[in-house]
């Protein structure tokens, strides 16, 4: 993907594709012509229904962490941002930053136990017992918490994720 967002040109193929998708979701709201850099935002409901996101258990969180207002509505810029971070070419560090945001449900900049529980419930469709959930969350904190504050800061998260063998291949959406 090309980061050369010259409004009106939309020259890279990736961006054109993204614009197509963005336009497609709400043809009457999103203009075809982006020369004037219009201030258009699409609500979360539209975006999480994209087939790329539809099955993702974290779709709401993904959209929220990329939206500028934190409410989940995305401007085209945010939209491009989202798919560039989730693209194949984005580096691990960048992905890690946004992954952290996504898993940080209550946006307190720490992944605490509540966040972990939410993540786990979304991942397993709440099929684990409460006991198992506590066990897993405890284990995660025990493994990854480097500074001993009982929750995962970004440093902890980054350290953990940088060693994960398949983070790059799974945190990735092809569009």
């Amino acid at each position, binding site marked *: *993907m*090309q*980061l*050369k*967002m010259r409004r009106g040109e939309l020259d890279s193929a990736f961006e054109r594709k993204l614009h197509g998708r963005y336009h497609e979701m709400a043809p009457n709201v999103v203009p075809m012509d982006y020369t004037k850099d219009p201030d258009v935002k699409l609500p979360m409901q539209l975006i999480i229904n994209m087939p790329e996101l*539809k*099955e*993702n*258990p974290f779709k709401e969180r993904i959209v929220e962490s990329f939206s*500028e207002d934190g409410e989940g509505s995305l401007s085209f*810029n*945010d939209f*491009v*941002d989202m798919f560039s971070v*989730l693209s*194949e*070419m*984005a*580096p*691990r*560090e*960048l992905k890690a*930053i946004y*992954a952290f945001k996504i898993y940080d449900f209550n946006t307190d*900049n*720490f992944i605490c136990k509540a966040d972990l529980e939410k*993540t*786990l419930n979304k*991942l*397993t*469709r709440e*099929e*684990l017992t409460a006991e*198992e959930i506590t*066990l*897993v969350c405890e*284990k*995660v904190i025990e*493994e*990854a918490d*480097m*500074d*001993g*504050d009982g929750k995962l*800061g*970004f*440093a902890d998260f980054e*350290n*953990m*994720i*940088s060693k*994960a063998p*398949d*983070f*790059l*291949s*799974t*945190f*990735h959406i*092809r569009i």
Partner: protein
Amino acid sequence: MPKNEKPATSEGNDGSDVNNEEDSAAENQENGRGADKERKRAKPRTRRGHARGRARHGGEEDGDDEDGTRRAGQRRQRNRRGRGRAGGNEGSDSEGDPTKARKNQANQKSKEDDEQEEDEKGGKSGKGKNEKKQDKKADKKGKKEKANKKKKDKKKSGSGSDSDSEEEPITEEELAKLKEEVEEKKKLIATLRNKPWKMKKKLSVLKEAQLFVEKFEGALGKGKGKKFYAYKVMMTKKWMKFQRDFENFKTACIPWEMKIKEIESHFGSSVASYFIFLRWMYGINMILFGLTFGLVMVPEALMGKPYGSLPRKTVPRAEEATAMNFATLWDFSGFAQYSVLFYGYYNNQRTIGWLKFRMPLSYFLVGVGTIGYSFMIVIRTMARNANEEGGGDDTSFNFSWKMFTSWDYLIGNPETADNKFASITTSFKEAIVEEQESRKEENIHLTRFLRVLANFLALCTLAGSGYLIFFVVRRSQKFALEGLENYGWWERNEVNMVMSLLGMFCPTLFDVISSLENYHPRIALRWQLGRIFALFLGNLYTFIIALMDEINLKLEEEKIVKYNMTIWEASLYNGTIPENSTAPPIQVDPADVPRGPCWETMVGQEFVRLTVSDTMTTYITILIGDFLRAVFVRFFNYCWCWDLEYGFPSYSEFDISGNVLGLIFNQGMIWMGSFYAPCLPAINVFRLHTSMYLQCWAVMCCNVPQERVFKASRSNNFYMAMLLFILFLSTLPAVYTIVSIPPSFDCGPFSGKTRMFEVISETLEHDFPSWFGKVFGYASNPGLILPFILLMVLSIYYLNATSKSYKEANLELKKKLQSQAEENKRRNKQKAQKSNEQEENPFETEPPQSKQKGGKQDESAANQDNKKEQSGNEAKTTGQPQEASASSSQKPQHPGAALNGHYPPQGRGGNLLPPPIAVTRPPGPSGYAAPGYPPGHPRFPGVQPGMPRGPPHYR
């Protein structure tokens, strides 16, 4: 803070410049894209961990660029004149404020001061720091570029105004600097995507950088070979796509991969391991089938004498009536018996057809080769699995990785998503079981006692059933000697009945016993497998005993037949032309010729029947035990007085041990019987093929996952070991019969020989030059063979010893790593605590708005910074030199950055830094700052850690 205004002004400048250089802008974009693509190409490689490849790649790139710039330099001289004017313009633009340049220099000096300050201050400046850290790179670069640019502009303008016509000599130094700037900007463009900024900011920074590059790259005359470059990039992209497709294709080519994955996601890896084992068996049998089919059955069918030409190739008169009965299909008598499917059909003609195909030799070699190949493949697989197991995986972040990286964001298909959810749940459950097992605190004495007791019970059961089998076999032999006609149905089928009863009840008994032991389910499965295996050995034993008895009987019968044969022949001749050897042989229909019992075919038939009936039993068990039960439970649950689904019958679980053992013993039958029935591998391939589908279906539709889904061991070596044992056991009787029982006189490829292996010496005699036979004779001399065997034993011993020592060293290293990681963790915790205490120190000035947490975080960030400064060289190897340098030459925060920096808004400045244990981090693919460079690339030659650094040298 004057520095803040700088970017704005420079942007303005650039903006005005650019308009008249639109075309070169396009060029630059192209270049930017090129750089982008370059990164793209580097990325996937890093992901695969081909660090070396990447390094080489980076090196190449460097070389290319260097060439480019050199060329550029030359070209620049040429272009000088044409560009002069444009340069002049720019110059005049910047001449408007000559103070700026000076200011810039001053800035640079102050920057150094700032940096030192900052080192002392660490990250205590609180909230603003994060913005700084993110922005500083770009800002710093921008500023420095500006400074340089200004200088250059000034110079240019000066020279331009001084003498338009004169060739302005640009010094090498400047050129290098300019190049450096351009490269830096390009790098910024390339790595811009890595920055966690919002798009708007990225755009503005990008625009600025691009304009700069446009302007000066044009001046440098770079961009030659652009087309080639674009082509290269395109090809890279295509190649990547092709590779991806090829990977997909490869996965699609693995048979039943999707089925197995689906089962694995619902039933766990232990059940999947059975199916993987089944698939592996299928592969082996395919090869065995290929061997026997291609080298034995097809040549005989095509080139051998046709059916009916010889007595051995004809159905005897007595059986003709029933030869086409339907029963032929399952008991393999009649026409099936007298066909290429069985040993007896083959002729002992030394060569057949126009190819002079050595049929008996081929038959013998295929029989031996089948077993040899099986040994080889089983042992090789075991060795490979052992390797994998020895490597082990890093379990330090087991749960965290499961939590944060197990969802595949690529999934867009609801069905796949369902499977993924199931598989994640299963894998969590597996991990939880492991964890619970490791946590379990138990009364060691009680457990030990129970385990001993359980083993004792199991041994008793085994011994009892062994004796029972022995007793029954003895009795049945006695019955057989006395003639079975005198006994009833029970006596005749006693052995079979006892065997099936044992096979039915003992596994259940073992199951009950193993619940005493309280083992981890994986270990329990092994015990269960081992015990049932021992039980089934009795099965095998009875079968072989029975077979041997039968062979002996047939051999006796053969002697009588041979005797009768001479009488019959004599009578034949006597009846017509006595005592006349020259008379033409009498034509007798081959069906009428009396013949021996041909024990080989009998053995082959026996095995084939056994295989077929075994298959049938398995399928019927699946249909009744699983499917009908599931149907019953499912539909009668509506009108039943208790809950069928969770109560008594419930759904069945997949019986791993039984299925695995069934598979293994079946394979043993194949190995034993395939010498006498070349069709056996074909039948087995068919069986495995169908059972794969049937069992996959049955598992998915009628079984429920085990109560405690456990993780299978990474290698199937336990299965393999049992298979090897069975292979060994089944080789013994086969080899025994080949070596020490004379082949039948009137059937099979070895008829007329006293032993089957004589075919080898016969071939040596006839088909090889005489010297070869001599050499072979010498080579088979015990004087040579014994030393050779000794040598082999010695080398095996040596290799074994070395491998053991390697393993130990490996373990040691692993332990060391682990303890180091723990140590690091501990130290970090201490550090965090210490910094917490420091924070409470009243002398420390703390930004009032930063919360407790934020402050602490910053503290740790500061620590990280300091550490990095101390170990600048180390930082280089960790692959984040740019980061390090950026953080070291950082300036006090400026308010403009706060507006631009979007992430993270609260005081988490340290977050972008690598974790404090950067030293232990593997120098793997973590370098993001400059993806083209290998992690160990010395990019800061001669820069002292902690010293103020100039712009990083990238060449």
